[in-house]
């Protein structure tokens, strides 16, 4: 009886459209992108290609080849930048992928839940009611979109700087064949997407860490700490047994997309590994967040 009487009179609660989660995703994204911190992170990322470009330009002003001893030892692709500005895109992505890019993602992912909990806004989102699963999905999706945006910012900045400082032309693939500039651009986009996809697993890990604490700073620091630890572990030869399971192990596999024909092996392995991390840490984050007492 009480149920019938107290049931909502109108259709206010029954109207859950198929796009029920899109509104909150857009809200997540705009909220994230309107923070000064996010813009600063993107600014730093955009500055990396500028620095690399100018450094290479100055170093090669006298006609000597880029990189110490004519390339080989320096960051990947650096020696080819002077021949073709498009290579600045690949060189820049290779430069930001080990540290800068995942650090930015770690800040966004680590802060996503913990930051809201710390500020107290999490409780108001949940009583709105955002729904815990829905909110977590929106936050993960927003983090993934940020991964893509951050990667594209680096690529776009590198392309602009490369075109300004160096000749832009058809390019030579790693395999030695030549492809047109248009196809080179397509490859650049493909590489950027592959780089962004490399961060899927790490973003899930950051999201999980974020559900463990009510302090955004602690979550960000822990996430970035895990990143550095994993990078170190991956570099120790004695630990080569575990390195194929570290999320960063196949990160630089994107260079295989510059071969002719494509060499997919490691790229696919990377995607599999990222999917595994996303599944494991995504489930862990979900289990933790849906059962958590929100006391902040």
């Amino acid at each position, binding site marked *: 009886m009480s149920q019938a009487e107290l049931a909502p009179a109108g259709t206010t609660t029954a109207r859950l459209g198929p796009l029920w989660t899109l509104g909150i995703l857009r809200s997540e994204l705009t909220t994230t992108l309107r923070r000064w911190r996010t813009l600063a992170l993107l600014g730093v990322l955009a500055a990396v290609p500028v620095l690399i470009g100018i450094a290479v330009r100055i170093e090669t002003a006298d006609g000597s080849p880029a990189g110490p001893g004519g390339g080989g030892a320096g960051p990947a692709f650096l020696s080819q930048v002077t021949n073709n500005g498009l290579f600045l895109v690949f060189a820049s992505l290779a430069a930001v992928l080990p540290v800068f890019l995942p650090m930015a993602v770690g800040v966004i992912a680590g802060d996503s839940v913990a930051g809201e909990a710390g500020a107290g806004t999490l409780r108001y989102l949940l*009583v*709105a009611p955002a729904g815990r699963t829905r909110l977590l999905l929106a936050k993960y999706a927003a983090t993934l979109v940020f991964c893509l945006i951050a990667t594209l910012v680096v690529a776009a900045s590198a392309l602009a700087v490369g075109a300004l400082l160096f000749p832009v032309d058809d390019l030579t693939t790693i395999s030695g064949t030549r492809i047109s500039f248009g196809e080179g651009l397509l490859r650049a986009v493909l590489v950027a997407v592959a780089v962004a996809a490399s961060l899927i697993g790490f973003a899930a890990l950051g999201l999980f860490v974020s559900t463990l604490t009510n302090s955004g700073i602690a979550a960000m620091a822990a996430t970035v700490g895990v990143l550095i630890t994993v990078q170190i572990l991956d570099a120790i030869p004695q630990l080569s047994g575990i390195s194929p399971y570290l999320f960063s192990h196949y990160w630089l596999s994107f260079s295989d997309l510059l071969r002719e024909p494509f060499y997919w092996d490691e790229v696919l392995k990377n995607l599999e590994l990222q999917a595994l991390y996303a599944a494991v840490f995504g489930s862990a984050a979900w289990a933790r967040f849906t059962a958590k007492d929100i006391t902040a």
Partner: protein
Amino acid sequence: MTEAGTVPVIETRGLTKRYRGGQLAVDGLDLAVPGGSVFGFLGPNGSGKTTTIRMLMGLIDPTSGTASVLGRPMPDAARTVLPQVGALIEGPALYGFLSGRDNLVRFDCADPTADPRTRGARVGDALERVGLAAAAGKKARAYSLGMKQRLGLAAALLRPRRLLVLDEPTNGLDPQGMREIRALIRELAAEGTTVFLSSHLLDEIEQVCTHAAVMARGRLITQGPVADLAAGSLGRLAVTTPDAADAARVLKEHGITGITLDGDRVRADAPAGTVELADLNAALVHGGIRVRSFGVERASLEDAFVALTGEGFDVAG
């Protein structure tokens, strides 16, 4: 409307929360908030009010016991219940880098049942209602505590609600702001919204609430209509007379207890309802006592509270 008044809008049975540290925050709470009431939820800091509110809103899982809001079990029915509930819990929490208006838009986006087409209008109305329309474009970090409190209230009023849960809603407001918010609460109650209001300001509860419950150390001490609660603790009999000592003697002969003397004022526990106060006064005058004033001071909710908890309004230890 009359039917709804008989059905509890909030009902808990043996609601208990023990935190992981072993601390018992809420202990076997049986709360019943009648529909259409303005329900005051009283208790010292640390008495379990906020934990109770968090359990009602599905933010915390109870250790045992059940809670139902709008006739549905919480937290299981959170998705259908909460869109009809506006809440202000433990003070406002805002995005400092967003404007007041964008803060409300953000919270409204979080509600999957809120219609995006009417969002702008509803946000505007809510801002208007709490008197923030002029400051809507300002970044929330520049807001004063009172303005933040108002914005928090506006978030609770984004849609027509059947229940408002307001935790210390007048915190940080100046006296004028407090009056405005109390007027707003009365206005909402008059529209038929049930208001569940936690406060440590006893006079606030007395001014706006029809019902109240008192908590101390995680337990519910009493609940019921405010008038009954105040009546539960009898008032104080007060006699002003130059013949204070004689007056005390006469009152004692008539079975009055708790007599205290203070200059020309005699105070005592108010007699039970069976004693006609006029007879008592006549007895005093018959005894040759010159009575300057005679009367019973009505018990305030504060008296009732102190009588119930046996303590001041301090932090529970």
